[in-house]
């Protein structure tokens, strides 16, 4: 159906609602009156008296009071005065006929998108066009693999997609098949382990750990496996082991490795201040004088503060800044940073809570 046709019908209905009362004839005032309420009340007193709920004297008193109100009310009712104000009615009729459609369009057109049709999901799933949804492609690949379960390449393509869709259990099965039919490799073992973790809701299970160890046996430099083994150690409460695994990763890492930040964050989580700098810079720092080193640290802190001023969402960053100020013995700045941090994340309850917990750990809550 054409949307404009529907809009027109709706407009006609709205205009009709305004015009209809104007076209009717009214004999008299149809509404209720005050007097009827008081008559009700009088009847109520009779009933209460008959039921023995009130005494005769009280009833008489109440009756007099209500009768007085009733008299006043009937006196005030001057009777139905219906003077059709023709001019006024005409103005309203014109407003309804012309104004309502015009105002409707004037408001709707800038806001609405009448050219857009419906996109119910069911209809879209069946549409065989080029923009076919990922879900359908996955279903097709799965159907294909159902028939050719030994297609190792197919499983290798499907598995990461399943993992991204959140279908962790299926992803685990897919990676297993990929390894069985497409050949073993350290990457696939590591990916399988990752899928197992996702399926377990973030817990590095024994099974997953086994896969990472196998991956490392195939390739000692497998980054993902190392990282997750560190995580396993952390989850087991062996933070020392976790830290040493991650430190070793950082030591071996090329300076521009994209996962550096992730590992550093993990390290700071277990309480080790991550070497945020490459080894060369650290070595240089070791050779500096006390003043130079202080200047370098201060420079880093200032950069952090400047970054947080622009983007205050980073709770970890704020906590690092506060900790740095505290270490440098600058308590006022730490307090100011705390206030800034709270203001920056005030709109986000989760972050605010996280921040407050962190501050509590630093002994700077309140």
């Amino acid at each position: 159906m054409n949307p404009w046709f529907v809009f027109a019908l709706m407009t006609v209905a709205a205009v009709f609602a305004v015009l209809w009362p104007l076209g009717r004839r009214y004999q008299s005032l149809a509404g209720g009156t005050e007097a009827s309420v008081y008559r009700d009340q009088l009847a109520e007193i009779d009933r209460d008296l008959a039921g023995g709920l009130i005494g005769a004297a009280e009833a008489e008193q109440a009756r007099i009071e209500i009768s007085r109100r009733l008299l006043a009310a009937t006196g005030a009712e001057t009777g139905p005065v219906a003077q059709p104000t023709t001019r006024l009615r005409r103005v309203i009729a014109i407003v309804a006929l012309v104004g309502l459609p015009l105002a409707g369009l004037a408001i709707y057109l800038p806001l609405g998108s009448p050219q857009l049709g419906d996109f119910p999901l069911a209809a879209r799933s069946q549409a065989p066009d080029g923009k076919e949804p990922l879900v359908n492609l996955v279903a097709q690949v799965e159907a294909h693999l159902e028939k050719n379960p030994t297609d190792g390449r197919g499983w290798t393509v499907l598995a990461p997609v399943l993992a991204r869709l959140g279908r962790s259990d299926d992803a685990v099965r897919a990676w297993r098949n990929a390894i069985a039919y497409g050949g073993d490799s350290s990457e696939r073992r590591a990916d399988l382990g990752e899928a197992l973790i996702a399926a377990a809701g973030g817990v590095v299970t024994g099974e997953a750990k086994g896969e990472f160890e196998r991956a490392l046996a195939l390739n000692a430099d497998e980054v993902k496996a190392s990282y997750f083994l560190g995580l396993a150690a952390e989850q087991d409460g062996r933070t020392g082991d976790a830290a040493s695994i991650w430190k070793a990763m950082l030591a071996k890492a090329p300076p521009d490795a994209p996962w550096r930040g992730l590992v550093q964050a993990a390290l700071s989580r277990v309480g080790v201040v991550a070497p945020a700098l490459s080894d060369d810079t650290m070595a240089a720092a070791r050779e500096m004088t006390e003043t130079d080193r202080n200047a370098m640290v201060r420079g880093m802190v200032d950069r952090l503060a400047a970054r947080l001023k622009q983007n205050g969402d980073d709770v970890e960053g704020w906590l690092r800044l506060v900790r740095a100020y505290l270490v440098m013995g600058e308590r006022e700045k730490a307090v100011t940073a705390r206030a800034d941090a709270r203001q920056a994340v005030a709109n986000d309850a989760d972050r605010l809570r996280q921040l407050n917990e962190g501050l509590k750990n630093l002994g700077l809550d309140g």
Partner: protein
Amino acid sequence: MIAEAGHYALVLALGLALIQSVAPIVGARRGDIALMEMARSTALAQLLFVGASFTLLTAAHVTSDFSVVNVFENSHSAKPLLYKITGVWGNHEGSMLLWVAILALFGALVAAFGTNLPLSLRAHVLAVQAWVAAAFYLFILFTSNPFARIAQPPIEGRDLNPILQDIGLAVHPPMLYLGYVGFSISFSFAVAALLEGRIDAAWARWVRPWTLVAWIFLTLGIAMGSYWAYYELGWGGWWFWDPVENASLMPWLAGTALLHSALVMEKRNALKVWTILLSILTFSLSLLGTFLVRSGVLTSVHSFATDPARGVFILLILCIFIGGSLSLYALRAPQLKQGGLFAPISREGALVLNNLFLTTACATVFIGTLYPLALEVLTGEKISVGAPFFNLTFGPLFVPLLLAVPFGPLLAWKRGDLLAAAQRLTAAGIVALIAIALMWAWLRGGPVLAPLAIGLAVFVIAGAISDIAERTGLFRMPLPVSLRRARGLPRSAWGSAFAHAGLGVALIGIVCETTWNSEYIATMKPGQVARIAGYELKLEGLTQRQGPNYRETLAQFSVGLDGEKLPAMTPSKRSFTTRGMSTTEAALLTRGASQLYISLGDASADGGIAIRAYYKPLVLLIWWGPVLMAFGGLLSLSDRRLRVGAPKPARAARRLQAAE
């Protein structure tokens, strides 16, 4: 087309509201019946269009049309159908649409069933109602449009906040909104009376059923919200004095006061100006609640979205309506005819006392809620006013109020006899004293205040029963006579007895839960047993399960009491992949009015899981009380309708002649 039609329907509703806000008033001024009648047809048409708009948005949610931003941001194709529907109002834009839909519903109800109202009063009421509606239509269309579209629709939505994926969302917000918005009717009546410059006892009679409806829904809505927080948030708490909860409590307190003062106005033509003020304040507090929750001033579960533009707009609406109505009040109230006088010891006096306590309690909550916000705005200092403040101020205000509750219905109108009322309450007092003594003997030491509080609650309940016994002449007269009188008793008398008893019931629940609540927090491994209040909870095992749009860890507990085997409990923890959030689903085992409560915490690496187990004696009374109150309200409402709707014409006519 579905979404666009919904959008256009909303725009048309705005157009109709604008006409409805002017034409009927002009009609009433000129005495033109047709223009006054126009308020009815436009109010009904508004309901048609807003209802259509809401239905079409729901249709977009059900069919997962992700080209609608609102659907994309708050829905997911894998979500169960129920949550696809409730998700419509589980977000800012949709909930505002529900708000105006209910506003339109109330307007249409007045238009359809307000046939007993004088024409000009009805025209004024509906016009004022249309002002409110127009303001909110503008707010929705320009700052929170639920029908905004995406030209290139994404294939999957972002899912609804997992905490809201619960049956509670199907009931709590609609109930609460029916309450909040229902008070708009008494507001409109008040402003209409001020505009007309005429107010009398009949006004109170007309406005009372609407206030009662709003009050019933608000009571149920608050109770439902409290129960939802209790089982969903996993802390076992049922009231947190959270600003958003307070925002719903304030209109309830003011509305309860309004209900009582309107009674005085109806019966005795007194307290008129005060009742008008209360009507205005109650709805203002409802608006304030909407503002607090929607503007992002507060962060809580309820704030779905925060956007400064919305905040400013709502603030504007708030200023115009509250400021405007109060200015009108200040201007017109002195010209209103003052009502009758009465002695301090009388039914009216008791109701004034009730009003004093309720409004003071309301003011206390108001200060506790808004003071920290004001302080933060003025000085930047952040403080939190928590439960201790409210417990310390609210408690002392409610104790005398509860003590006075049984006296009110026993006092006569105009001039009451306190001594006689006290005599009639002797039985209730004795029952309460026995309850206190029994509690003391049973506890031998222990908390001192708890038995006293329970005694107070028993006094309130027994007082409500004595009131009914007194009216029916139970024990004084033969049983058949009493039964006949009980049948003849006005339903509103039964209603107030039930509502007052509900207050006592809730108090017992509150006292028992806070005093004798036992808690057990530990990390358990399968096979281990926790003991709490005589119950043995054995963790049988942990299993994983895949839900439609989440994974959950279930813990099976077998429950035993003195060797007897009770139904198993399976609390769970759900993790939702789309939002990366998890929720706890507490397991509840109900034994009478008491409950055993287990919720899960985090799993530890060695296969254990943190659990919180609570035994909460008589906790369900906390919610049965409000349900009882709402039932009382319903009884009272049925009474009104019967009597206002169907007067006895013959008899009434005779009475009229006698009066003249």
